[in-house]
């Protein structure tokens, strides 16, 4: 793969598990979606370390907790809707409360699930997971970051929620990229405003910066892969330097990255903040890129919000 080549982060998840399975004695669980979550890549290579629970996500999460209690690192995989939604209480009580080493691989997050429609387009998972103490949330932007995130999750002692997508997304980082849990990544410095993006919105944020540059606006871009714990220091620095923030995420603006950023900056450096994301609505069936357009998850909309945020200064 090279910069710009497309691959869905769920593919990266499966690939990372299969590769890291050589190096680490991990177990991988799935609830009858291994062909979609791509854990079947691991299953084919390490059948003795793969556990299918059938269609029973709550049971999968609590079982993973029991496995982790014996000292093993275990990945539990399903769609975000079921991993964070249906199994919320198992995640909270069986995994997070005792801080067990369960890594939740949640694929098919967000509106870009496409044709399956609202029932499967989880736009609430970051918000749900963010409110649980002990939980770490990583939302990688591309293949390179997703691969690195899986290894970082293995090396972190405690629960991690990893958010992956179904849609193929462009590679934006090269092989020299160093992933650091909890640290935001400054992609471009700016002086008029800062776009803080996560997941598949990162390339749109980069594109928005280019659109704005044509109008003489200098917008910085920060990639936040770890939504919890969030890099408050970097965000505060950006707010102080540029005085306006726009967040971009494939998630409801309530509870997700936008909320997390607003929470930090309201305490450290209050500046105008505009939040790009789904505006507290359910999705619908359609082609992924048509839906992204429909719900405003575009470079143009980010650029528009940057101008609005700048206008709100002072």
């Amino acid at each position, binding site marked *: 793969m090279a910069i710009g080549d497309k691959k869905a982060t769920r593919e990266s998840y499966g690939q990372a598990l299969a590769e890291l399975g050589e190096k680490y004695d991990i*177990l991988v669980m799935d609830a009858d979606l291994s062909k979609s979550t791509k854990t079947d890549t691991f299953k084919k290579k390490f059948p*003795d*370390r793969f*556990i299918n*629970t*059938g269609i*029973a996500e*709550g*049971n999968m*999460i*609590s*079982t*993973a*907790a*029991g*496995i*982790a*209690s*014996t*000292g*093993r690192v275990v990945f539990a995989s399903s769609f975000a809707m079921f991993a964070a939604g249906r199994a919320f*209480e*198992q995640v909270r*009580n*069986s995994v997070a*409360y*005792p*801080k067990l080493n369960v890594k939740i691989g949640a694929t098919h997050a967000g509106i870009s699930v496409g044709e399956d429609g609202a029932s499967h387009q989880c736009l609430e998972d970051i918000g749900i997971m963010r409110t649980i103490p002990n939980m770490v949330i990583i939302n990688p932007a591309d293949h390179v970051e997703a691969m690195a995130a899986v290894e970082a999750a293995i090396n972190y002692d405690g629960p991690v929620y990893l958010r992956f997508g179904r849609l193929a997304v462009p590679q934006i980082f090269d092989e020299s990229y160093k992933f650091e849990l909890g640290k935001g990544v400054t992609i471009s410095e700016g002086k008029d405003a800062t776009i803080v993006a996560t997941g598949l919105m990162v390339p749109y944020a980069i594109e928005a910066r280019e659109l704005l540059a044509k109008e003489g606006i200098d917008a910085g871009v920060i990639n936040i892969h770890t939504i919890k714990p969030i890099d408050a220091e970097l965000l505060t620095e950006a707010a102080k330097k540029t005085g306006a923030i726009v967040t971009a995420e494939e998630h409801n603006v309530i509870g997700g990255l936008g909320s997390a950023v607003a929470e930090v900056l309201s305490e450290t450096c209050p500046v105008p903040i505009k939040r790009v994301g789904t505006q507290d609505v359910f999705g619908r069936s359609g082609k992924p890129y048509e839906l992204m357009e429909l719900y405003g998850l575009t470079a143009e909309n980010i650029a528009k919000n940057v101008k609005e945020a700048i206008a709100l200064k002072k």
Partner: protein
Amino acid sequence: MNKETAIHAYKARKHALTGIYNAQSGHPGGSLSIADILSVLYFEVMNVDPKNPKMPDRDRFVLSKGHCAPALYGILAEKGFFPASDVATLRQTDSYMQGHPDMKGIPGIDMSTGSLGQGISAANGMALAGKLANKDYRVYTILGDGELEEGQVWEAAMFAAHYKLDNLTAFIDNNGLQIDGNIADVMNSNPIDKKFEAFNWNVITINAHDYDAILDAVNQAKATKGKPTVIIAKSVKGKGVSFMEGQAAWHGAAPKKEQYEQAIAELDAKIAELEA
């Protein structure tokens, strides 16, 4: 019958009731109904070391019906994991004795539980991990009969049989009562035996207060290969305290001073009788 096992069970009942009385909060009914099973497990069956509670190859216990923690704390105190005086601080703000089992803060607790239906899944995970690692430890869990109304129990029941977890033994504390009344009236989980048979489990039914029967059933479970065992333990809610026996009202109510004193007097009399 091993008299010591019975004595520990009755002393654990006292510790549990003392903690509940001091907190004026907790679940006496189910705690009293599982005390005998716990005593057999911890004093005659399980390989555990109070001096090394996290010993990797220990047998494991998960209290799936986590609200009966007072009885478990009582037995763990008898076993020497912590002093009985700590159980007396149950549910107090400055105590580590949480209302429901907390594996991070309480020695001897193998899984944090309290939300019904999740403990059996965690027990499955421990049992499966043991098999995958070629360990010969065994895993025990106790569920309530009301808990069987949780759908996750049956997801877990399917899983345990599918993965042939013959190192797992689940007890059903079958006292026939839940908070809102008789199981049969609130949401009938009967017939319990036929349900587990249909889920491909080895099923044994015993009297939950017959120490020899408990041990015998555990040994039968150990000898059963290729499937998990469920021991349906016909119990008396509130067992050991005359006015609590068979009363749903004592599911989650703390005794008043006179009631507590009477309960302790009855339990002391039973202990004296056993020690005689």
